[in-house]
């Protein structure tokens, strides 16, 4: 029984970590830049298709495709940010919503046109397939890999934001744009780099998601809701918040399905509503 519980917690955590990698970029851009980027899921989808192309068409190993997914998603997003999104920073939330949802429509259609509507299978390296036995329990190797990646990302982000010059610039620009400009910080560049970082993480998340949840042109819509749940429950702009929220939701979802299968579909939503009703700013939110 204890063993079962351990496995359920582990599986839930792994699923949560996938949600975390997919969402943390959105939390950063929404929290730091006040930009409602519903196209975040579209950048995740882009990362996924990059992985498919790199592994299948170029024949490179899966691990190589991960940085490629990050970089391509980051570069494409920064292109959009420089040319289009930046015009919307002052345009109000509703216009940001309309514009970015329009982008998701267009991206989804483009993906269907280029890659077709079928699911995209990928081949994992041998060491990520199958299971790793530990204390008599069988843990999915890929899930272990996911958890490690998520922990590394969390560590890098927290360190980067707290202890680097650039992190300090981001925090300054968020607190007070004008003051930051006065201090000689190039706010434009800070925003662009932050945006690229956030979208790059989405691309990485999309690449990592294929093995767990598949990839087709509706990915950008499908996972948007889950991303927004993680971001709102965790609290805008909080990396630790996203991490905790994603873990909580992943574990609660799997544990709920395991112990009370009839409530399985409701669990995530019930938790979200309860958390936000009691703490509208999210678990780690400041406002």
């Amino acid at each position, binding site marked *: 029984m204890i063993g079962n519980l351990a496995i359920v917690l582990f599986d839930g955590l792994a699923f949560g970590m996938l949600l975390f990698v997919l969402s943390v970029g959105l939390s950063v851009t929404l929290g730091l830049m006040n930009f409602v980027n519903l196209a975040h899921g579209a950048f995740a989808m882009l990362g996924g298709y990059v992985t498919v192309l790199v592994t299948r068409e170029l024949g490179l190993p899966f691990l190589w495709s991960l940085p490629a997914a990050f970089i391509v998603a980051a570069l494409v997003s920064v292109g959009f940010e420089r040319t289009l999104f930046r015009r919307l920073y002052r345009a109000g939330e509703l216009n940001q919503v309309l514009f970015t949802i329009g982008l998701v429509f267009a991206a989804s259609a483009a993906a269907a046109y280029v890659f077709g509507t079928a699911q995209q299978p990928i081949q994992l390296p041998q060491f990520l397939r199958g299971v790793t036995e530990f204390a008599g329990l069988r843990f999915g190797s890929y899930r272990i890999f996911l958890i490690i990646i998520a922990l590394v990302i969390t560590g890098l982000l927290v360190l980067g934001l707290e202890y680097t010059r650039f992190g300090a610039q981001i925090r300054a620009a968020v607190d007070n744009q004008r003051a930051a400009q006065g201090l000689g910080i190039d706010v434009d560049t800070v925003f662009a780099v932050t945006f690229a970082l956030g979208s790059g993480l989405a691309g990485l998340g999309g690449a990592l998601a294929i093995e767990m949840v598949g990839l087709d042109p509706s990915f950008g819509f499908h996972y948007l809701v889950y991303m927004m749940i993680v971001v709102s429950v965790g609290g805008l702009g909080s990396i630790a918040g996203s991490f905790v929220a994603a873990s909580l939701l992943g574990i609660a979802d799997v544990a709920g399905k395991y112990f009370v299968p009839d409530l*399985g579909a409701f669990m*995530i939503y019930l938790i979200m509503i309860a958390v936000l009703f009691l703490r509208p700013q999210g678990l780690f939110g400041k406002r």
Partner: protein
Amino acid sequence: MIARIAAALTLGVGLAFSAQANAQDTVKIGLIMAYSGPFADTANQMQAGIDLYIAQHGDEVAGKKIEIIKKDTGGPKADEAKRLAQELVVRDGVDILAGFTLTPEALGAAGVADQGKKFMVVMNAATSIITEKSPNIVRTSMTIPQLNTAFGKWAFEKAGVKQAYTLVADYAPGHDAEKSFAKGFTDAGGKIVGADTSPMGPPDFSAFVQRIKDASPEAVFVFIPGGAQPPALGKALAQRGLTPPDVKLLAQGELTFPEAIESMGDTAKGIITTFNYTMERDDPTNNAFVKAYREANGGRSPDIYSVGGYDGMHLIYEALKKTGGDTSAEALVEASKGMSWESPRGKMTIDPETRDVIQSVYIREVKEVDGKLQNVVIDEIPEVKDPLHGMAN
């Protein structure tokens, strides 16, 4: 200002207003499917089947030209399907309504086929009651009870499974599959030791797979929609060691679609599924169909949706030949009843009473053939009818 907008709008509609060519020498077929949205792939495969049939057999039947009009529901959207059916009838003047990848959409449009007296060919949607909604409806796919009741019986009698656990997706087809498999299985003498339904959200099956493992059944029966779910479930089962030969894994054929097998790898070996069409079945009609289909679709293989569309067009063509071009629903339904032909799936007959297909139910197992994993037919249950018709009421 508002008047101007209204004027501009009506002008826009006017431009799009297509003239109602009601020429005597064409047969118009309106296809209603979810070409976009989460079920787009089903529609695309079916469309490819339809296109292939027309390419092979020409677009003229009984001296009339076949004209196809495609309508996207973006669904599952019952109300959209109904509207599109109405518009196809009153504006485009179609003679035949066809397609219908999704059950709610077929049910939504059924009333139009009845009210508008149009022949309606359901090429996929698989809930039993659809054909009971109007005498003008004929189906060329299958029903879920047809496959799974027979499969349940087979599992007990032929595979020697005594007890099984069922896991189905939490939507109407899943519930149908659970019920019909259990019916066939328990009627034969088997025992269901547990039953779960998994939500349609993100495909994370770890909790359900653990529940199955806790129950340590002899066999697991699974029904889930195609797409992202099959590989995810296959992998989750493998991680818990719930794969053949330790545990018998039974499912409807979506679980072992080619993309899913590719993604699952060796863990797919030994999965036993039921379907009314198997791409790998060695048969001259089928081999020719598969070859032509792949050539026309950049290497993509056909599936049951493709065959549903292909056979649906065959039914329409042959019925039109029989009626000599008469497109009235009455004549076409009469012509369809009892029609029998060699399809890529094998022999199929339109049941004159229920207007559903009488066909073979195939039992397949994933095996390695020439170094490649694929579904191999291991048994065939011939001439199976839908067991539910006449029972629901």
